């Protein structure tokens, strides 16, 4: 059973936990109406209703280092080292698998060659295999997946189908939004419920609307399981709402950017879950940034180097992404981090992994700033479970914003404690000297562990799905110019500009790297990436056919860092890891529509998909 409609119709019963046959999880969001009848009445009274169905494809993370893990046993204790995002996720799984205590299994992260969500949950699986094999064999066992195994077996982005209805009044204001989201979870539960949650929480978009209904379901099929991938459900629903908004702009003949600016959420507005937006809403700053560089749209028609006629178009989109765990997730996690006086300065201990996103550098900068010392005196220790507190997983754009803030607080307290110790002894001087003096004393380790504290006024109701879905949002706008070869129907991105409100770019090069990497993954998803399933198996399980963009496919990327500080992030920083993934696909679709006059509501917008619309193109 490979079709979500068949699964929902109960063609076979794979799963039933009370949400409906084959429904792993369902969420409903209601805003501004008490019943379906009330919602229907708003639609009935609307000046225009825009209806659309949108489909997005599965996507392979394609970290360049495949999954790899090694285990060995010594004195009855299991040691595991490998490529992973979340050592304590593996730790938790091994405690259950091995029926052992927390101290009987130790998880260490090896330098990890990319994750993007693909090494969030799957490493527990391969860790289980090596742990058991190592126990049986009485020797160290290492497993390294070949690329074909990795593509065939590990979790990918959920394919998703979204039906979206938009009710608009005569002045062009949104009166109501009604959305139905269905994701294909595959054969096992995985993180599907949480992915779906983020998908539905972003589904209504960053737009003012008094009446919203969102229903989301993730469905069991016989596909390989889908799971975490950068954006985590939001890219799927963002594609749908930004296509809808584009259709509204066309309907009204209104400038695409101006319309979005007119409808966008700002401080004082409420989201679909009724969250009152306060600080750090970068809407106006993001629009101003994109307008400052937009310039003229590309010349419509031309001829390319192959002598083929081309047609060009421009697309924009506006979007947001909640940073950190959903709802009360961060409170439940209660992430901890420690800053301690080390032998040669200071140590930062957290379970956040560096998977290329720069966690070590950022934590070093945050601790150094809070302590008032040179970064050279900071050592971020390896996130081995026996040596660090559980800071929560390295996911959800939370490492810098959430764990970084905990480190910032711990460092400030440690600084006061160390200074107080120095004052007691009558020693002053630079903090590093105090630290060296302390380390030379035969006294107990001086360490400060801090725990996440939610910002004041944050309240979330899991039962009604209302309240503050996220402590804060990042805001972004994207502009894409495309050129379509009319002989081959290949769409090429000529220009891609992203303006992203990151709160504060603690390290601008790292932030740029995050935005540009996420942007290209999004452009790839929009145009050329796909996982082809045949009879429930991946039919293109190799890098030859499961392609991602090369240097030559990538356009020059223009990145505009917008800084509207978040009072509870370190130096004002907000999450940035995921947001760039959400928007560009819709901007590409909007640009291709602008070029050819045909709507593109499914991903990927492959040459084959474009060619199939040729009879409907509206060319001069």
């Amino acid at each position, binding site marked *: 059973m490979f079709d979500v409609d068949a699964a929902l119709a109960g063609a076979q019963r794979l799963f039933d936990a009370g949400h409906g046959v084959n429904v792993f999880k369902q969420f409903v969001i209601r805003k501004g109406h008490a019943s379906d009848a009330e919602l229907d009445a708003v639609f009935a009274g609307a000046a225009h209703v825009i209806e659309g169905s949108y489909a997005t494809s599965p996507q392979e993370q394609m970290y360049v280092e495949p999954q790899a893990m090694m285990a060995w046993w010594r004195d009855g204790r299991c040691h595991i080292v490998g490529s992973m995002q979340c050592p304590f996720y593996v730790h938790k799984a091994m405690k259950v698998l091995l029926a052992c205590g927390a101290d009987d299994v130790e998880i260490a992260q090896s330098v990890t060659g990319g994750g993007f969500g693909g090494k969030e949950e799957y490493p527990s699986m391969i860790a289980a295999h090596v742990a058991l094999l190592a126990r049986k064999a009485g020797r160290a066992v290492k497993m390294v997946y*070949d690329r*074909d195994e990795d593509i065939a077996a590990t979790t990918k982005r959920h394919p998703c189908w979204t039906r979206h209805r938009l009710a608009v009044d005569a002045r062009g204001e949104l009166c109501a939004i009604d959305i139905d989201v269905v994701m294909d979870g595959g054969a096992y539960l995985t993180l599907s419920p949480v992915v779906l949650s983020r998908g539905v929480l972003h589904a209504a978009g960053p737009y003012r609307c008094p009446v919203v209904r969102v229903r989301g379901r993730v469905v069991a099929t016989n596909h390989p399981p889908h799971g975490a991938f950068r954006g985590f459900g939001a890219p799927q629903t963002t594609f749908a709402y930004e296509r809808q908004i584009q259709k509204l702009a066309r309907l009204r003949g209104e400038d695409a950017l101006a319309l979005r600016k007119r409808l966008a959420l700002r401080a004082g507005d409420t989201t679909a879950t009724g969250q009152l937006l306060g600080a750090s809403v970068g809407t106006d700053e993001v629009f101003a940034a994109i307008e400052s560089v937009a310039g003229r749209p590309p010349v419509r028609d031309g001829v390319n180097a*192959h*002598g*083929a006629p081309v047609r060009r178009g421009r697309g924009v989109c506006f979007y947001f992404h909640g940073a950190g765990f959903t709802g009360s997730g961060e409170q439940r996690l209660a992430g901890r981090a420690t800053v301690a006086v080390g032998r040669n300065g200071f140590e930062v201990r957290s379970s956040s992994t560096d998977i290329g996103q720069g966690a070590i550098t950022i934590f070093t900068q945050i601790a150094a700033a809070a302590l008032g010392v040179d970064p050279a005196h900071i050592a971020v220790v390896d996130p081995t479970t026996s040596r660090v507190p559980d800071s929560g997983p390295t996911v959800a754009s939370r490492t810098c914003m959430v764990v970084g803030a905990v480190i910032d607080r711990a460092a400030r307290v440690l600084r006061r404690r160390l200074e107080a110790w120095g004052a007691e002894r009558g020693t002053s001087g630079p903090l590093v000297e105090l630290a060296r003096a302390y380390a030379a004393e035969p006294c107990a380790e001086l360490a400060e562990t801090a725990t996440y504290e939610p910002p004041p006024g944050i309240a979330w109701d899991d039962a009604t799905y209302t309240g503050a879905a996220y402590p804060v949002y990042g805001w972004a706008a994207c502009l894409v110019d495309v050129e379509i070869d009319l*002989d*081959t*129907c*290949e769409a*090429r991105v000529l220009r891609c500009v992203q303006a992203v409100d990151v709160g504060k770019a603690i390290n601008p090069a790292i932030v740029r790297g995050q935005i540009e990497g996420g942007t290209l993954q999004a452009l790839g998803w929009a145009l*050329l990436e796909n996982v*082809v399933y045949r009879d429930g198996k991946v*039919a*293109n399980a190799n890098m*030859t*056919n499961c*392609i991602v*963009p*090369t*240097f*030559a*496919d990538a356009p020059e990327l223009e990145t505009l860092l917008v800084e509207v500080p978040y009072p509870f992030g370190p130096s004002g920083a907000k999450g940035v890891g995921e947001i760039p993934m959400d928007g560009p696909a819709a901007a590409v679709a909007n640009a291709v529509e602008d070029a050819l006059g045909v709507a593109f509501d499914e991903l990927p917008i492959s*040459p*084959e998909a474009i*060619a*199939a619309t*040729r009879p409907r193109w509206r060319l001069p």
Partner: protein
Amino acid sequence: MTAYLRPRDLDEALAARAAHPDWMVLAGATDLMVNANHRAAPTGILDLWRLAPICFVRAADGEIAIGAGATWLEVERDAAVCTHLAPLAAAAREIGALQIQARATLGGNVGTSSPVGDSLPVLLALDAELEVASVRGRRRVPYREWCTGYRTTRLAADELIVAAHLPLPGPTTRTVWRKVGTRRAQSISKVMGAAAITLDGDVVIDARVALGAIADRPVRIAAVEAAVRGQRLADAAHAARAAVGPAIQPIDDVRSTASYRREVAENLVARFFHGMMQRADR
């Protein structure tokens, strides 16, 4: 244990080929070594990489001869190839990326004879002739007769490919090439086409038109060639487009669809003639 021989000259290579027809003939190895760590080791390896007598690109006597061991990097950097056989240089630049071009050889492309071999439609359009050798002697095979089916050729079990001989196109012959791959570089072809078109003013005197990735082997499209002969370029473009469809058998696979391949093949062939019309205008 796998035997290994790196012959010093062609005679030694041919003798080894005759003595060990089961050995793997390896040059750049870019195809045969894919996932090599998971495949059974061959009985023996006959390594032709950098075998001097087959590593050359030579322009003489109205032709350019390219040794089977010449890499695509050597082909694309050869001044005579770039001047006289521009489509071959262009195809060479689109084979894999730099790392592949530095190793993959003309002999490998011709010997493997994949339906998506990037140089093969060009060899058809340029009317190449292959030179093969064995201990029994040398012979030449017109490339248009080389491919006998899906990855099968006229190469005998004791033969090695020595070179391809490409006649220089005459002054009134224009050559063109286009590859449509899965992405802009390091890609497998969905469709590719090459043509050599001889003109008298804007009238097509003769044309060789070849397509790749649309059948089990690279193919000359005789119907197109017949349809355009004697036509003005504008009419030839229309005639060519109409003649492509019935002559090819593209398939659906994980990389593309039959209908897309068909449509693009038609567009490419029509553009070859149409594009020449624009060039004739200038």
